[in-house]
């Protein structure tokens, strides 16, 4: 049997030689553990969830086709859905830029020639390796309104105490604060990018009499834009899937007064508390579509603000 493939350049059909065919088969065989895993554990669930999102399905009874019923119900009849969307957008809109700004700021500081720099870098990276659950428990204590360190400090300063996680006005900012604490991962990436900026750019700027702010504004930040872009995309994906801290700290209830009912929390509740798998699948696809559109828009806009050294954009 002769195997053929089509050349991407000429469009002509190319006949595979015996060795090429053999190598292809061997290659496929060697990657087959991953390939089988991908097909069964990733691709199949994705396709299945698309189908289940059009059904009423509880994991035990056969799925009942309801068309777009789940989507219509979510958008038009479920006020909790919109509350969860609102909470998640609020969280994403503040947490993502805040995290990036803090990470850039700390990376700039850690990039300076100071004694003990590697120790500071280690210290700032440490929170990133604390498991999410442990971090949530730790912060629940720090922000405990009665015994927490945060309120103790406020009291010591003569300031009024705050119901960090018990007051609906403060619960989301508190969770954003917890998220901002674990910025070490982003700092490492920004640090790597900072060290990749050619020194001659700064030397030329120095010769032109540029001060620190001008160098940062016109050299450092533009050169960091690919990494900012990368962090932005990752941040959006992470923020819209935000779950662990909210689940652990509120015991899955999304309180107080629904202020921490995030999208993924509501999705989880529908899937594993109410066993509305079709409904939860529809929520998952809406989430995917939203993140996909936002990522697409960011990619479209990246030509205007992301600078790739050696690229053809400005």
């Amino acid at each position, binding site marked *: 049997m002769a195997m053929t493939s089509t050349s991407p350049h000429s469009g002509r059909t190319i006949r595979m030689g015996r060795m090429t065919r053999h190598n292809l088969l061997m290659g496929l*065989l060697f990657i087959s553990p991953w390939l089988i895993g991908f097909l069964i554990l990733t691709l199949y669930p994705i396709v299945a969830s698309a189908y289940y999102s059009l059904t009423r399905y509880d994991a035990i009874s056969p799925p009942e086709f309801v068309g777009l019923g789940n989507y219509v119900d979510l958008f038009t*009849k479920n006020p909790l859905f919109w509350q969860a969307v609102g909470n998640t957008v609020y969280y994403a809109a503040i947490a993502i830029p805040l995290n990036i700004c803090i990470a850039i700021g700390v990376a700039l500081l850690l990039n300076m020639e100071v004694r003990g720099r590697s120790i500071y870098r280690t210290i700032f990276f440490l929170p990133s390796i604390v498991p999410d659950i442990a971090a949530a428990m730790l912060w629940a204590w720090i922000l405990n309104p009665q015994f927490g360190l945060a309120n103790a400090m406020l009291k010591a300063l003569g300031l009024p105490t705050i119901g960090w996680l018990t007051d609906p006005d403060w619960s989301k900012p508190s969770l954003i604060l917890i998220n901002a604490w674990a910025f070490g991962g982003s700092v490492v990436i920004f640090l790597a990018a900072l060290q990749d900026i050619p020194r001659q750019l700064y030397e030329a700027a120095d010769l032109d009499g540029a001060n620190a702010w001008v160098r940062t504004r016109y050299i450092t930040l533009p050169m960091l834009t690919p990494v900012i872009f990368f962090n932005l995309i990752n941040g959006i994906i992470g923020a819209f899937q935000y779950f662990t801290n909210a689940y652990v700290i509120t015991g899955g209830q999304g309180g107080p007064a629904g202020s921490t009912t995030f999208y993924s929390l509501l999705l989880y509740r529908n899937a594993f508390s109410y066993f509305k798998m079709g409904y939860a699948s529809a929520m998952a696809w809406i989430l995917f579509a939203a993140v996909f559109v936002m990522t697409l828009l960011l990619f479209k806009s990246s030509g205007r603000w992301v600078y790739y050294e050696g690229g053809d954009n400005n």
Partner: protein
Amino acid sequence: MSIQIFNSNGKPMRMNRRNFLRVTAGLGGAAFLSACAAPAAAPAPGAPSGESQAPSGESQAPSTSGDQVALNVLWENWGDIYNNLMTEIGTDFNKTTPNVNVEWNFDPDWVTKLTTLIAANNVPDATLMRPAPLANLAPKGALLELDAYLKDAGVSRDDFIAPMYDSGLHDGKQYAIPGGADFICMFYSKDVYEAAGLDPEKPAITTEELLGHTKQMMQKDSAGDIQRAGYIPTAGSFVNWAYIHGGKFYDADSGKITANDPANIAAMEYLKEFVKLYDINKMAAFNARPGMFEAGNPFSTKQLGFVMDGFWFYEALDQHAPDLNYGVSWWPTLNDSDEDRKRYAMSGWMVSLPKGAPHTEEAWNFLKYGFIDNSARMGYLTLNGPCILKAAGDWEAGLKEKMGANNRMVPYLEFFSKTGALATNFFPVIPVQAFYQDELNRVFDLVMRDEVTPQAGLDEVTKNVQAELDKAMKPA
């Protein structure tokens, strides 16, 4: 490349790369196919349940009496201490039935596990059960009807704590036997009573007294932070308060949700009276202290007058508050009468036999042994309320021995067993029970925060849950 292997005579054989890859791929494929294959012994659930199963001879799979049987029991993870205590019941059963070995599978998310096991036709022989999953699984034919087994065992509804028995019913048939009842009573701090200038030997017995005593116990600092409180209502207690006020949550005859029953609204308004004494955020802050089973909880530190909890609370108090002077009394009612106390709601856990399990007969024998014949022992050993009424005496005696005759709790044990005997209500066993409870919790918080009135909030719950129930009951 070639790989050296040895034949059965110990002589080396050579295998080239192609053959090695063929063999590896073949073995991998075979392993994959065998892993994906459905277990042969497990018939598919899903068909609507028909007539009641017979105790023997007609079970889903043939009994393997005489052979060694590993009984697979799915259980909620209660933590190592209580898991280990529960396994003692299995060990006792093993002694009486040497050919059956009870193998426990403790899982904190046992409902999800059970659901996936049922979906995969790989059910455990027995499983813990609660009303919410029962209401989902029983109508789908995933659980075995136990009426014939119960009849064969010579027990009926009259032998059990009624609301626990009724929680296992669906469509008039029994799908679970009661296992452990949550006997909840009122713990009150005699130290707080004294500090507030109240008589510690006269705890609040009516709803009016509870509110009055709470007012007297209330103490705040200059910043408005609560330093001492009486009773702090929680969303989880609302259902019992509503029943105590004469409320109801579901009308089985009409299939209607009745969350906005006038008595439920009255109960919500009553609880709001407590919250008015505190600032809601200050109250939430006070409640954010360590849980009742941890050191530093406000009852242990003599800063809280009342806690509604089960008898098992004594262990935490022994550990964290050895010098606390506390007592136990009835959960307050409107008029302090046994007639009033019959309105108590009871919850707890049950045990079911999933349909299609391989060792149904042995599993039933284990259920009967552990939760009917030895209900008292199971109860005092694992700190659960026994669901067999006549077991109350043995249970109390066993508990006294376990906790020590001088334990502060001993004089009050009777309140708990009597609470179980009196209770008649239970939260409705309907397919949307988890959603119903979440909706009540959500609205409770909003009502207490003055964001919605009790009437409007409970109207909303009624509407939302009814809509979900209608969808769930709609025939496929």
